[in-house]
Structure formats: C-alpha cells, structure tokens
C-alpha cells in the first residue's frame, strides 16, 4: 500500500473535493476532529494533545488559558507572589465539582499528591519538580508529603513553595496534570473513574458518553463557575487518525473543526493552503537533528558546525514541509514574550567546507560514512534524503539512511545507538527553559551524550535569578552555546499549528504559540442576512 500511483490518484480526488466544501448552519453541537483515540482521560496520566483538549474541558486547574494562549485565572481568582518569587499564594474562588460538592484548596493538595505518588507513574510528573521536595517524593526518596512545598492554609488558600523563582509557574498550573481530581470517585471506582456516569469534573463540560475509537460526547456543565460564558451546549470529539478520513468529513460538512495538524493531508498542502478555511500559525515546537557526540568523528564541534552550515533550511521548507513552517537556527522557537532566541548558524557552504578541512577532512576525504536515523514517516524520509544529498554535494560526506519504526527508534535514540537522529520537541509552557532544560547533563531527554560546564552553570544561575530580564539574558547566553558553539543538535524548522474551520461560521478560535484552543471559548457566529440558506 502507499504506492506513488495511489497517492497521485488520491491527490486528484482531493483537488476535486476542494471545490465542493460547504457548511451547514450553526447548531448546538460542535463536531471536532480530535486526532487519535484518547489513551486515558485521567488528567494526571495523559501525555498527548488529543487527551489534553478533552481533559481541559472536563477539569480546570488554578489557572486556565484563553483562546490566545494567555494564562488567565481559573479556579484561583488571583495569586500573590513573594518578593523572592518563590512562594505563591493562590486565592481560590467559590466553585464546586459537577456533583455540587465544594472544591477546596485541600482538593488541590490531595490531587497533586496523587500526581506525585510514585505508584501513579505519571509521565509528566517532572513538571512538579519546580516545587520544593516534589522530585524527592516522586522518586520515592521522601515518604512524608507534608514536606513537599504545597499546603492548604484554609479551604480557599493554597500556598506553594518553589525551589527557585519560576516566572512560568502560573502557566504550569494550567496544565492538565495540575488539575484537581475527585479523589472520592477515584477511590470508589479505581480505573473506571474516568468513564461516563462516574466521572465528576469541575470544568466547562461533562463527559456524556465515550465510545472507543469513535467519539467522546461532552455536554455543558451547568455548575461550572463561569457557565454563562460557555456558548456551545454539546461537543462531539471524533477519534480519527487518517488525514483523508478527517478531510472527507470536514469537506462534506460532517465536522466543523479539524484540530490536529497530523490530520491534514500533506500531499496536497500547496492547494489546501489557498483555501479560506485553512489556518496555520507558529507553534512552539522544533524539528531538529540530534547528534551523538560521544564518538568520533562527531565529537568534534567543527564537524557538527560544518553539518549545520551546509543545510539550506529555506529550501527544505519550500519544497518539502510546505505548511507555513519557519527555518530554525535556534532550539527555542521565536515568539516567547521577552525572549529573542540567538541566531545560530545559517546557510554558509564555504565556511562549512573550511571547518571540515580544519577538522582534518578537506573535501570530505577520509571522512567515515555517517548514518542518519529517523522514525518511519514520509516527511522524515523526504527531509533525510534531501539532507543526505546536501551533505554529499557540499561536504563530500557520504551518509546512509536508516529508518526505524517509532518504538525501535526511541530505543536507539535513548540508548545512544545512533550517529545523527531526527528529533522534535514541543514546548510545554511559554518559556525557553522548556527547551533548554532538555540538554542539561542529568536530563533524561538529552540523548546526545553532550554536556558543558558553562551551559549547566548558566541554567543553574537562571533558575535562581528573580529579575525576568536578567534571567532571560542568562538563558539566551546558554542557548547561544548550544546553537552557535557546540551544536549537539542541528535545528531544522519550527513547526506550525494547522487547523481547518470556516471562520465565517466559527468564532472564539485564535492562533497561539501553544496551539491550545479551549472549547469553552468557541461559538457559532450568527448567520448574516446575506448568506444563502442552502446547506
């Protein structure tokens, strides 16, 4: 399957379909194509975006995001920060669970304890590690939770003590893993607590039904604290993984909104981009190559620089990705307020050749063949093939390609059994630390064998610096080491978030860096008088 001819045929089919898109009138039901079947709806267990979108509708943390991705008050109506930036005091509003019982600060303490419980094995538990003793508790070194920096002063006041000033802490609090969970229900039903009829939440929507691999139906929560601002009574989130199935449903008016960028048929992106319902926006995620620096010849930074300098990212984006991506010369994508990432190495083939000659391989003579590893996907393969050709032409280096199925690839990368490997990273919050923290020596996400004393020191200094400007300057300096001097990674492009929806029909959706689009803000625009009545 997947032969060229079938793709060509499919392209032809979609081009005809493009002309036929039309949409039904507003309704009380929003049909969203949400991506793969959610692996769970337990906010403290989930890891993916499709799960996250549903969980955000079912649970609300201390803070929330608005449609532009800004952090806004959620269950906390306001928060006070100590002068050293280390103690946060959240003042909770009066709100309740969907069964009517009050939501208290104690609920948050107990829920955060559950998330950190080693037995929960929550994969995102490290987001709590900014809190005092949270890491020790999560790793089982500390048994007494009262020593972790979270306590309820009274039923409406929650105090959090952090290791260092963490200016993005309010943004972390909007993440699903920081949501309160109804512990009585969890205890009563065990693994089944997230099933319809049992789940109790505190978010804008309630779980009405959940048919495996088909759809999740959400209905408005009448007890949500700002219930009057939620305008769509019903939401159906369809589990669809195939881009063409998603597009067919959208094109025939059976779905209102396609949210997952994995659900956009890439082979006719250039045509799709011209359509009024195509929306693309910068996304806080980077596509890069990881370099294993633990063995020659790639342990020489000059060679790593030469590899980076010879790649023309603009051309890759123009000819291969075509979804509005931007060329990457840094690890952190631009757009984080107050932070301009350093400009790393651009396209300079002459300098690349000079560096390679300095490293002892003039014209690539005597350079051992390299292997480039990627996880099987059409686009990864196209990019790898292009880069293989570039390195051969510009540097005279021969590269062989190796593709591995996802889990095998992860195994190879995490055990450093590769030379150069395709990678990507999605920012969890709007701060450079979400990217730069990966390349600390002890980070489990480093996977390059690289470490640098100056880099460690700068990041450590940044974590204790209160003044935001100085803190970001330190991070900037650290990133410059990463992308200008050392290059254990080779940034290629910054992703874009892509959505399909008719702007004349749906409102409350805006482009934002984290690609978060809360359901509670979405609404159907009233039909204007000039519209035709035909569906």
């Amino acid at each position: 399957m997947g032969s060229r001819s079938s793709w060509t045929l499919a392209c032809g089919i979609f081009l005809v379909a493009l002309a036929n898109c039309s949409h039904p009138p507003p309704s009380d039901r929003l049909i969203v194509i949400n991506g793969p079947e959610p692996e769970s709806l337990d906010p403290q267990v989930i890891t993916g975006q499709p799960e996250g979108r549903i969980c955000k509708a079912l649970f609300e943390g201390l803070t929330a995001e608005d449609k532009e991705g800004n952090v806004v008050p959620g269950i906390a109506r306001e928060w006070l920060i100590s002068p050293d930036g280390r103690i946060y005091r959240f003042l909770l509003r009066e709100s309740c669970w969907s069964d009517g019982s009050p939501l208290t600060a104690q609920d948050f303490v107990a829920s955060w304890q559950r998330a950190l419980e080693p037995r929960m094995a929550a994969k995102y538990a490290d987001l709590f590690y900014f809190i005092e003793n949270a890491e020790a508790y999560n790793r089982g070194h500390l048994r007494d939770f009262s020593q972790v920096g979270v306590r309820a002063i009274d039923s409406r006041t929650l105090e959090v003590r952090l290791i260092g000033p963490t200016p993005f802490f309010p943004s972390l609090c909007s993440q699903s893993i920081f949501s309160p969970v109804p512990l009585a229900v969890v205890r009563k039903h065990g693994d089944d607590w997230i099933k319809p009829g049992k789940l109790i939440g505190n978010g804008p929507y309630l779980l009405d039904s959940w048919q495996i691999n088909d759809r999740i139906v959400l209905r408005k929560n009448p007890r949500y604290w700002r219930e009057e601002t939620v305008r769509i009574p019903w939401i159906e989130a369809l589990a669809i993984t195939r881009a063409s199935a998603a597009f067919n449903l959208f094109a025939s008016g059976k779905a209102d909104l396609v949210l997952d960028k994995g659900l956009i048929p890439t082979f006719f992106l250039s045509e799709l981009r011209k359509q009024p319902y195509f929306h693309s926006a910068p996304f806080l995620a980077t596509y890069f190559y990881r370099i294993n620096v633990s063995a020659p010849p790639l342990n020489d930074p000059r060679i790593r620089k030469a590899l980076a300098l010879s790649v023309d990212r603009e051309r890759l984006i123009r000819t291969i990705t075509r979804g509005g991506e931007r060329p990457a010369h840094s690890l952190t994508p631009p757009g984080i307020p107050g932070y301009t990432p350093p400009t790393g190495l651009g396209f300079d083939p002459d300098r690349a050749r000079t560096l390679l000659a300095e490293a002892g391989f003039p014209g690539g003579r005597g350079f051992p063949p390299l292997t480039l590893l990627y996880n099987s996907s059409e686009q990864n393969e196209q990019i790898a093939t292009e880069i293989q050709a570039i390195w051969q032409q510009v540097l005279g280096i021969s590269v062989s390609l190796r593709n591995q199925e996802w889990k095998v690839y992860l195994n190879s990368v995490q055990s450093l059994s590769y030379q150069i490997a395709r990678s990507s990273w999605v920012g969890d919050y709007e701060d450079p630390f979400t990217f730069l923290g990966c390349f600390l020596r002890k980070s489990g996400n480093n996977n390059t064998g690289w470490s640098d004393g100056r880099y460690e020191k700068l990041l450590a200094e940044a974590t204790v610096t209160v003044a935001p400007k100085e803190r970001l300057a330190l991070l900037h300096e650290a990133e410059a080491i990463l992308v200008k001097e050392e290059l254990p990674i080779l940034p290629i492009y910054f992703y874009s978030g892509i959505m399909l929806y008719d702007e004349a029909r749906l409102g409350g959706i805006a482009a934002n860096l984290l690609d978060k689009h809360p359901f509670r803000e979405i609404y159907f625009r009233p039909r204007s008088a000039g519209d035709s009545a035909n569906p």
Partner: protein
Amino acid sequence: MLVFLLRRLTGAIPVLLGVITITFFLVRLAPGSPFSGERAIPPAILQELEARYKLNGSLWEQYTSYVSDVLHGDLRLSTRYRNRTVNEIIGQTLPISLALGGSAFALALGFGIAAGVWAAVRHNRMADRLVQVLCLGGLSIPSFVLAPLAVLLFSLQWRLLPPGGWGGFRELLLPASCLALPYAAVVARLTRASMLEILPMDYIRTARAKGLPSATILFIHGLKPASLPIVAYAGPLAANLLTGSLVIEEIFGIHGMGSFFVEGVLSRDVFLVAGVTLVYSALLIGFNLLADLASAWLDKRVQLS
C-alpha cells in the same frame, strides 16, 4: 457428528495457546518498550509502570502469569489505553467489525452467486463477458483505491451517502460494498466455473427432459451441488472479511477492532495484540468448522471424521 465437534473443539485449544504464546513472545522480544515515549521516564516510574501491568520479573514469569489470567477470562489492562481492559476494548469494537464484516459477507455471497449463475447460464454471451470483466475489475482494484473513489463520487460529488462514520444503514452501505466487491468477484468466478461443470451433466439433462421448471433445475439441482466450493471458500472468506476490514475501517473512520491490532503492535501493547489475535484466531477456527459442517450438510458424500 458429536465426536467430530468435540474433537475439533479440543483440537482448537492447543492452537489458541500456541497463538497466544507466539504473539506474547514476539511482541515482548521486539525492540522498544510499551512505556517509552518522546519524553524520558525516570527509572523509578518505569518500574512502577512495569509492576502495574505485571511486566516485571523474568519473561517466563510474565508469560505464565499472563496465560493463567487468560485462562480465567482476563485479557488484562491495555498498556496504551491506560484505563481500559482488553476485554472492554474488544467488547465494544468487535460487534462493529462483525456487523461490517457480516454485511460484506452477505453482499459478497449474494451478488457473487447471482452474477456467477447468470454468467454460467449465458455462457459465452454478452452477460458472461460482462460479468467476467467486472470480476477482473473487482479483483484488481485494491480497496484503498476503490474506497476513496466511492467517497468522492457518492459523498463529496453527489452527496448521496455519508463519507464515514457509523450508525445506520446509510453509513454501512459504502464501506460494506467496498469491502465486499473483491470477494464478490471471487465468489462469482467460483460459482460460474462450478455451474459450468454441473449444467452439462446427465441428471440436469434428465431434469430438463422431464419438464421441471428451469428455476428449480437451476437453483435446486444445479446450485446446491455447485455451491460446495463456495461453502469451502466461505469459511476463510468470513475470516478475511473480519480481519481484512482494517483499511476500510480506517478510510471510513469506523471504530472497529482492526485498528487496535495495528495500534497495539506499534505501541508494543502486548496484551491488546495478544487479545485481538486470540479473538481473530478463535473466529477463524469457528468459521472453518462451520464451513465443514455446511459442506457435510450439502453433500452427503462428505464424511465428518
């Protein structure tokens, strides 16, 4: 008959056990862990996960404890869909795959037999040629080409039928037809060939000579013996339609069991893969048994032994 049934059913037990064993070890020995992801997991958390899903200890211990759970009817928790048991996933999705496969089965047999009989009766005439050409087309157009074409024409162009989803007869029509077409072609060719062998036989000529209505000759005296190869084919056909519906399920966004098979393998969800494989194997054994029983009922010369 009863002895035959008992023997076949007891014979199925070691087969199913073998299926579970092979699947379990293949998935467990494949590189990659069910818990790995783009983000690293601290070793302590990995240990907790392995303990929760009983994937700690030696491979042999994991295997024996799993087999003992399966014998108690517990297919365990899926490692990917963290709050779901494999029993629950199969329970919700198998009926959908069965409904889709069953409709396609009926369509394949219905259209296939009708077309085959028609072609045999009009041997070497226009109708015969037409059926032959259609069969060739049905056999050679793969479903991943046929299904998008059908969606384009019937859903996006003429807006007659929905392009996907599940629920009623309208949603079922396109996917079931696309799934059935290649098999209908095989059935039609089998029927035609079989009927062409039967129709010139002496007892058919006798039946005509004594003036029996031609419908009786065709369907009672002709089709019944001619259907033996079709019945033999129906067992594997039913199994094929159930296991082969994956592509169709994906194209039409139908939430059947097929996708979990692939998803399970890709995410190294050993219990999901083993559970789904077990169900598929049981169905395959069951349908083959039914086909044997049907053959014996149709042709008294077939001995059930």
